[in-house]
Every structure is written in structure tokens, then in C-alpha cells.
């Protein structure tokens, strides 16, 4: 049943992405609006699925790759809705939803079973650590998309996308909010490490790269004050930052081994 609903969800997001593509190619505002409605419906369905899994498991089920990809995708869709409703970012939806499809597509073939919670993960600090981490990542993913589109807009100067100043503002906002949430993720993680291992910072490769993500985005919160960096440089930095995020989230688990409790 859950797997079927997951396929339906994927179909809804796919249809929305297709609608954005049609709008981008043939400029059909009605279809763009319909796509937005589909994203809204998808987010509602995904929220219901997440809430049901949470309720059934008795804890936020984000302990394996399927669950984190699913949660990441949900956060990204929600954040996209926020930016779309606030700034009307139009064809930007195509890029963000493609990214979302990649996340959900990565989750689809995986085992969806919820495993029982081991005592090491049985603490609210764990849930907070994960929630803040993936909502933060989703903001960074949003900043990545906006950064890439900023570079497109520099060349295309199209009215399908918001103007450069708006893209810059959205990018800065996504990075600031992402940094704030990721800071809370690091705080929850340190408190948890303190009570679980007896030291609040661990030199395992995942924690080290999380610090890198944090320092990088702290730097980004200031890079926007450097006048010469405010345009394309900032956009490129947003793309590079997301590269670090993806390596921290997926690269370490897939390419290297880590003793982080979620590996």
C-alpha cells in the first residue's frame, strides 16, 4: 500500500515537472498554475505519508537511506512551495522539481520497512538533529537551484525566470535560513554526542564534513556583503556548497566508511 502511494506521489511530482517543462517551452501560465497545484497536492500526500509512518513507528523514521531521501524530498518540496508562494519564482519550479524527482527516484527502489529503534537513537536529540539537518540541506538544495538559475538568467535574460536581483535575494535567504537550521542540527548533534560518547565533537569523517558544511555556509552568510561577489561568484559558491552537502550526505556513506551512528 505504502509503496503504491509512493509511486502515486512520484507520478504527481513527475506530472508537475512535466507541466513546468511545457510552460518553459511554450509559455502556458495555466499549465504552470496547474503544476503548482500538483506540487501542493504532492506535498499534502507526502506529509500524510510521513505523518503516518511517524505515528506507526512511534518515532520519526529517518534511520536509513530510504527514509532520509524521502524526508529530504518532502522538505525540498515544502520549501519550494514557500518560495513560490512568497516570490512567484515561476519556471524555477522546473529545476527544483527535477532535483526533487531525483531524490524521490533514489528512494523508490529502496526498502521502505521501518526498523525498530535501537536505544542509541532513542532520544529527542536524534529527531531534532535529523529534522534540522535535512530541512537545512533542503534550503541549501534550493540555494543551489537558484544559483544555477541565476547563472542561466545572466545569459538568457528571460522573463520566465525572476530578475537577477530577486534571484540573488532568494539565494541569500535560502542560504541564511539553511545555515540557521544547520546550526541547530549541529547543536543537537553535539549534545547527543556528549551524552552518547562523552565528548561533544567526534573526529569521524561525517562529523568533520558537517563542520565543513557549517563553516562554508557561515562564510556564505558573509560573502554576500562583499560587493564584488554578489552576482555570479555567489551563485557559483551556492553550487559548490551543495557539492559539499551531497558529499557529506551521500558521498561519505557510498564511497567511504564512517562510524557515524546513521551509517
Amino acid at each position, binding site marked *: 500500500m505504502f509503496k503504491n502511494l509512493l509511486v502515486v506521489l512520484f507520478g504527481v511530482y513527475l506530472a508537475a515537472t512535466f507541466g513546468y517543462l511545457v510552460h518553459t517551452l511554450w509559455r502556458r501560465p495555466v499549465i504552470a498554475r496547474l503544476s503548482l497545484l500538483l506540487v501542493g497536492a504532492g506535498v499534502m500526500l507526502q506529509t500524510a505519508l510521513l505523518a503516518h509512518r511517524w505515528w506507526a513507528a512511534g518515532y520519526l523514521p529517518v534511520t536509513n537511506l530510504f527514509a532520509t531521501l524521502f524526508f529530504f524530498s518532502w522538505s525540498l518540496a515544502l520549501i519550494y512551495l514557500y518560495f513560490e508562494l512568497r516570490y512567484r519564482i515561476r519556471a524555477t519550479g522546473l529545476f527544483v522539481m527535477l532535483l526533487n524527482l531525483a531524490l524521490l527516484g533514489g528512494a523508490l527502489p529502496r526498502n521502505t520497512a521501518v526498523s525498530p529503534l535501537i536505544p542509541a537513537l532513542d532520544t529527542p536529540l536524534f529527531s531534532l538533529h535529523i529534522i534540522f539537518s535535512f530541512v537545512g540541506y533542503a534550503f541549501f538544495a534550493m540555494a543551489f537551484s537558484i544559483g544555477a538559475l541565476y547563472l542561466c538568467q545572466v545569459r538568457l535574460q528571460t522573463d520566465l525566470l525572476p530578475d537577477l536581483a530577486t534571484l540573488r535575494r532568494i539565494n541569500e535567504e535560502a542560504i541564511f535560513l539553511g545555515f540557521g537550521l544547520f*546550526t541547530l542540527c549541529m547543536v543537537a548533534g553535539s549534545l547527543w554526542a556528549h551524552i552518547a560518547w562523552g565528548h561533544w565533537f*567526534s*573526529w569521524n569523517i561525517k562529523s568533520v564534513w558537517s563542520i*565543513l558544511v557549517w563553516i562554508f555556509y557561515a*562564510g556564505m552568510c558573509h560573502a554576500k*556583503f562583499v560587493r564584488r561577489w554578489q552576482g555570479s561568484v555567489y551563485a557559483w559558491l551556492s553550487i559548490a556548497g551543495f557539492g559539499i552537502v551531497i558529499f557529506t550526505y551521500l558521498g561519505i556513506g557510498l564511497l567511504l566508511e564512517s562510524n557515524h551512528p546513521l551509517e
Partner: protein
Amino acid sequence: MDIPAAHTKSWPRRLWEFGCSLKLAIVLASLATLLIMGGSLVMHFNPGVFGGMDRQTMGVWLPWAWQQSPHLVWWVPLSGICLALLGVNTLCCLIDWILTFTRRWRKTGEYLIHTGFILLVIAYLWGSLAGYRSGPHAIFPGERLDIPKMPGLVLHLEEFAPRFSAQGQPLDMVNRVALWQNDQLIARTELRINHPLLYDGLVILPTSLGQALTGFRFHLPPRGFVNLEAGSRLELDNGTILSIDKLLADARQTSSGGIIPLSDRLGNPAMQVTLLAPSGRSWQGWYFLRGRPPAAMVDAGALLQPIEPIFRTYSLLTVNRDPAGKLALIGSLCLSIGVVLAFFSFYRKRSRGDRPEV
């Protein structure tokens, strides 16, 4: 003639401005990022040097690792220096900022974020130099452990009850402990995973469990079953006293007849046995349990047949101390509250066009 402003500034002023510069912050943060990025891969592929990093504080690990392989480790102090300088840089900015900005309360969030980072840098350095990590200490229920470097402080393990899953995997380690300072009870609590004992910078937490061989169950015809461990005495039917002097879980006999203990794990167990006959004649020798008892034992009627080992479970506890733990906690609180406040001030600053530019 106009003299450029920079030339009219005194050098302390210029030094201060350098300390407050955002560009310096970006250079330091970028340098630290690049160093740690490369270093993390060096770390990953050299577990012999870096694997024990979490078992020691940085203050203990770094000098050791530096002696072993300075060519693999140099990036650690260098990135540490960059981050410490970034802390100083942030402090200068914070002071400069507090002194120059009007309506400061509006930026309380940003102040708190910067203060939090400075406190965390100080707490890490302080904890690395003045703290320690010890263990895991093996303790049997009922035993006491002297807390390292805190004279008079003793931990008493009153009860140990590990919990296992249906498949037999350890799930939780429930340790009932009491902490005593010179015979005065300080705390009595239950340690479990994610529930350590925190006291004066100490973190005492359960790590795992182990089993130690304490004896063996034997069949002794015609008497039946007997349990023997080091120190046991048994009177045989002919009046001979059999006593167990030593028990080794894993041992080997050398060509010269000496006995060498090999490990604490059950391998080739051996007992040192003394027989004291009613006549006063005595014999002492080693009995390797995987073979037949020595002739002297057979002659005395001690035809022991080992049935199963007897183990006793012990708890493995980690005892760490970080005197800067509270400071780190305050730093984290500053960061968290600061972030929440900055979420509001971000939009307020944006609507007012309040934004520094360099």
C-alpha cells in the same frame, strides 16, 4: 595635499582593523575548510594514526600522533590555528560591532551567534588541554572504580543488568551506580545508553559489556556435578583435598614445562591444582582441560570431566572529563537562541536596507 586616510592611521589602529576585517575571516575560513577537506581523506586512509583520535583529547592525541607521523598530521594543528584565529577575528568583530552600532538590541541574534562560536572555540581548546578520556573500564557488579585524576572520588557499580534483543544482541546496558566522594554519597543513578552520569565536568557512560571466565562446571563420578573456580577446595572421597590455585582461560605449555597465559578469551583453558593427601603428601601441577587430568589426579580419584565454562558478566564504562563542557553548553545555547533571533532580524534588516558592504 590630501593624505590617503590609511596612511594617517596609527599601527595599533590598522592592526585592529585587520583583526576586524571580514576579508581576513573569509581567508581563514577558506584555508581551514581546504585543510580539513584534504585532511579528512588523509584521516580516512590512515586509521592507524587517526583511528584513536576520539579515545584521547586533542591535547594528548596530537603530541603522540606528531611523533608517529608528522607528515600525515601537520594539517591538524594548522587548521586548528586557522579556526582559533577565526575565533579571535570574530571576537574583534564582535567588540568593534558592539562599540560602533547603534540600537544594538536589534542585532542581539547576530551577537549571540558570534559569541557562541567564540565560546565553542575556547571550550574546545580548554577541554583538549585540561580534560581527559579514560576507559572503557571493566567493572564487575559490586566493584569500585577510582575516578582518574579526581582523588577521593569513587564510582561503585551496584548492579549491572544488560538487556538483549530476541536475537541475543545487546540492546542496552543498565548500570545502577553510586558516586562517592570520601565516603559521602554524591549521586546514585541508573546509567543507560544516552543517559550518562554528569558531575563536575565528568561524563560516565556505559560502553559495552564483557564476560570473564571465572570457573568450570565438572562432572566428578560418582559424586555428580561440581563447580570449581580459582580458590575452590574440594574434599575427595578418599580424604584428599583438591584445591584450585589458578585458572587461565587460554594458556600454553612451553617445552621447558613453564605455563604461559595467552589471552583472557576462552581458548585452551588450564587450572593449577594442588592435591593434599591425608598422609600429608602433596602434589601440584597443571591440568589442561581439553586433555585428560594428570595421572596424580586420576590416582587420587579426581576424574574431572569439564562440562561447561562459568562466566561472569562485567560492565565496560567510559569515564571522560571535560572541564569546559559547561562553557560549550553555554556556547551552544548562545548559537541556538542567536539563530532563532537572527531569523527575525534577517527580514527586518532586509526591509530596512540595513546591510554592511565591503
